[in-house]
């Protein structure tokens, strides 16, 4: 294997902090030419931060950075690009309204001496490149008309064939079907054999083990292990990722936790054979009153789509929703709200009005109940004040513009809105993401209170801890299908990761 070759990329003692929080602490990392280097770690372990440093996105860090043995400092992503480093980011970044060929050549279309784009040459070369990748598609078709997985493949193809000698792939397989993943791996191996250095980040540990030569494990901003892929197992990697022992401050959920006996409350929501294009297939489950149902899965597994369907924001292609015994097809979010469904999306920004005071943010969904025609601001403030006190929102001033509150308090305002409603079914996406320990515990307590009041609650998260800390029953969603249900049995982070 890669013994004896000198690294094309070497980082020594990299430390990077965001506003006082250390995301990386003294990390060493080396990439050899002709190597596929897998990177694993939980969300927030520092993988993406390190890759963004390599790709010139983060330029403010300490430590040594060497490309081909030369100490270098990139000032921008453009510098990194010039040095032959290319990255496929987690989020799709394509231009859907341009043609496939234009996307493949984005930023360096072939031109003649007059600077005029040579369309025919561009189409031909794009077609050839994609064919090498096993993609058979008309280079002149509009990219946005293709399925998401194909778009992702084309974006990857663009980066792989850009001539870069160092390629970083951050979660490239989340939207791909198994044969597409296979094709990607074949291409990666070929590029490796041609001498390209590849960094491959994924939550799918089987994928990492299959394609990479070396695996590095991150935990809490540190590199905790580096080993040859052939010398390790999925179990060992998961263990290294989540860490045994008392290192973590929070409850680490590494030990078995026993889920309670399922609630025998009435069924509030029944989902049957729900599907949505490439995102969800044949999803069926029930949610009962007085129970918190967790839905766990990796980024892009279809959670987001599922939550949007439940709240009437997306329309499913097939399947039925039954709320309180009545089949529903929600024409709008207003219809979902009236049926007693509430959603807190993963991004607080998406549901809050930052330029409006706290009380208006709280009362917006119950206005039709407290006022027929004329507003009753005094009553709105009173209701909001009660919630602010109950949830200990700081500062406790209902007239303050929401934008002045901290993130954790904004999340509480989002919950407060639906607490005043209150819905029959509450859908929470990533309810504790980005919160400090105290705020997390507050949210957990609020959710437990609501469960005690007899609400059916669905918690969707890509963080195992979130699901484990809240849920009474857990469904595992993998690439758009439900693959496992945990109920009335022991569960732990290992078991969840194993199932996903």
């Amino acid at each position, binding site marked *: 294997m890669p013994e004896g070759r000198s690294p094309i990329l070497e980082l020594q003692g990299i430390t990077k902090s965001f506003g006082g929080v250390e995301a990386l602490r003294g990390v060493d990392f080396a990439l050899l030419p002709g190597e596929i280097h897998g990177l694993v770690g939980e969300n927030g372990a520092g993988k993406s931060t390190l890759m963004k440093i390599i790709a010139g996105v983060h330029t403010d860090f300490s430590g040594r950075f060497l490309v081909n043995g030369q100490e270098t400092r990139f000032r921008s992503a453009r510098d990194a690009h010039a040095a032959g480093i290319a990255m496929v980011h987690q989020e799709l970044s394509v231009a859907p309204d341009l043609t496939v060929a234009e996307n493949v050549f984005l930023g360096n279309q072939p031109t003649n001496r007059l600077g005029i784009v040579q369309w025919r040459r561009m189409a031909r070369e794009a077609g050839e490149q994609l064919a090498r990748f096993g993609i058979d598609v008309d280079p002149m078709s509009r990219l946005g008309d293709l399925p998401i997985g194909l778009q992702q493949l084309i974006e990857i193809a663009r980066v792989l064939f850009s001539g870069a000698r160092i390629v970083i792939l951050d979660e490239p397989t989340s939207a791909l079907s198994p044969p597409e993943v296979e094709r990607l791996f074949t291409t990666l191996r070929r590029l490796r054999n041609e001498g390209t250095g590849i960094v491959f980040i994924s939550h799918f540990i089987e994928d990492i083990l299959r394609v990479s030569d070396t695996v590095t494990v991150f935990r809490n901003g540190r590199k905790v292990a580096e080993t040859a892929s052939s010398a390790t197992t999925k179990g060992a990697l998961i263990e290294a990722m989540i860490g045994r022992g008392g290192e973590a401050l929070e409850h680490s959920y590494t030990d078995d936790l026993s889920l309670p006996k399922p609630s025998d409350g009435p069924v509030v929501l029944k989902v049957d054979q729900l599907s949505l294009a490439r995102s969800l297939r044949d999803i069926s489950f029930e949610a009962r009153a007085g129970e918190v149902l967790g839905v766990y899965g990796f980024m892009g597994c279809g959670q987001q789509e599922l939550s949007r369907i439940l*709240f009437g*924001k997306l329309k499913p292609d097939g399947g039925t929703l039954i709320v309180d015994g009545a089949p529903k097809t929600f024409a*709008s*979010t*207003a219809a*979902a*709200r*009236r049926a007693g469904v*509430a*959603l807190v*999306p993963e991004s607080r*920004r*998406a*549901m*809050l*009005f*930052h*330029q*409006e005071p706290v009380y*208006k943010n709280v009362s*917006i*969904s119950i*206005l*039709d109940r407290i*006022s*027929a*025609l*004329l*507003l009753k601001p005094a009553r709105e403030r009173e209701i909001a004040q009660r919630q602010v006190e109950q949830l*200990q929102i*700081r*500062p406790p001033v209902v007239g*303050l*513009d929401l*934008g*002045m*509150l*901290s993130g*954790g*308090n904004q999340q509480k305002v989002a919950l407060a*809105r639906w607490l005043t409603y209150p819905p029959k079914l509450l859908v929470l996406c990533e309810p504790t993401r980005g*919160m*400090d*320990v*105290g*705020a997390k515990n*507050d949210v957990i307590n609020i959710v437990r209170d609501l469960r005690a009041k007899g609400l059916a609650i669905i918690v969707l998260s890509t963080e195992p801890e979130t699901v484990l800390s809240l849920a009474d029953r857990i469904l595992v969603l993998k690439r758009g299908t439900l693959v496992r249900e945990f109920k009335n049995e022991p569960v732990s982070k290992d078991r969840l990761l194993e199932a996903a």
Partner: protein
Amino acid sequence: MASSETALAADRKPRGIGPFLRSQMRNIAPFLTLIFLSLFFAFASPSFATLDNLGNILTQVSVTGIIAVGLTFVILCAEIDLSIASIANVTGIAVAYFTLQESYVNIANVPMPGAVAILLAILLCALLGLVNALGLTVIGIPSFIMTLAMMQIAAGISALLVRGQIAYKVPSLISTLGSGSIGGIPWIVIVAAIMLLAGHLVLTYTRFGRYVYMVGGNREAAEYSGLNVKLILGAVMVISAVCSGIGGMLGVAHFGSAQQNEFDTYLLDSIAAVVVGGTSLFGGRGGIGNTIVGLFVLGVLNNGLDHVNIDSFLKILIRGLILLAALVINVYAQRLREQTAD
């Protein structure tokens, strides 16, 4: 958590007069413009600052004011309505079309009792507004394009109704409201004042008004709050069309005739009044109060330029420059506010 988060929140609380003024810039700037223009014309011309002339200004801005009420709702929702002048025109023509004309008017019209004529005209503008609403919400055509099409459609209906002729008679109620006066105050000014007041009350004190601001402020959040965003957007398009229709009927009575292209200048004037007044083109900020200030800025400007003996062609250029300045302030104020809020 409490201590660190509280401290953070306290730090972010912008207090003091500077940030306050910055966040209020969209309200202050138009008002200062109005005071400046008024003072300027008062010194430049002895005939400007008279009670008579104030009456003139009020009458001159009335039709624009009535149309601008509905447009304020639309712009607060971060949409636009370019069909207001055309709908005003077709409604004015329709009400005349359904009224018995003098024998020398060569229009194949359909005389009806006055009340029916008025009702039919209102129905017509509401219907056209509904078409705008459906195009915007059900089909998903951007309001800019949808109402551009409606501008042509309404103009087309106007053309078919009058066929290049001019009608003069309108129902007596309309002619009183449009050209009569009571106790020296023109009815049209009173109607404009009542409609502006009603618009203000709806926006400030009703649930619907709150929804309009919320949808305009953050449409995605409104949807995630379970509001029926499409219904609200549809409603403002209909409100806009009906206000335009009322403005059109009274305008026809005020001018004394109903004919093609009579209201063309009102499109720009109404949009200018709303935007110059400081209502945000990005939605969610502003209101009827702003529109009233905007109306006066335009009214004083138009009227004052007549008083100071200025090249009438230059007048058009000056109006354009003032509008540009207002747009700059509008966009700038939005940015300042976002900085203060985040």
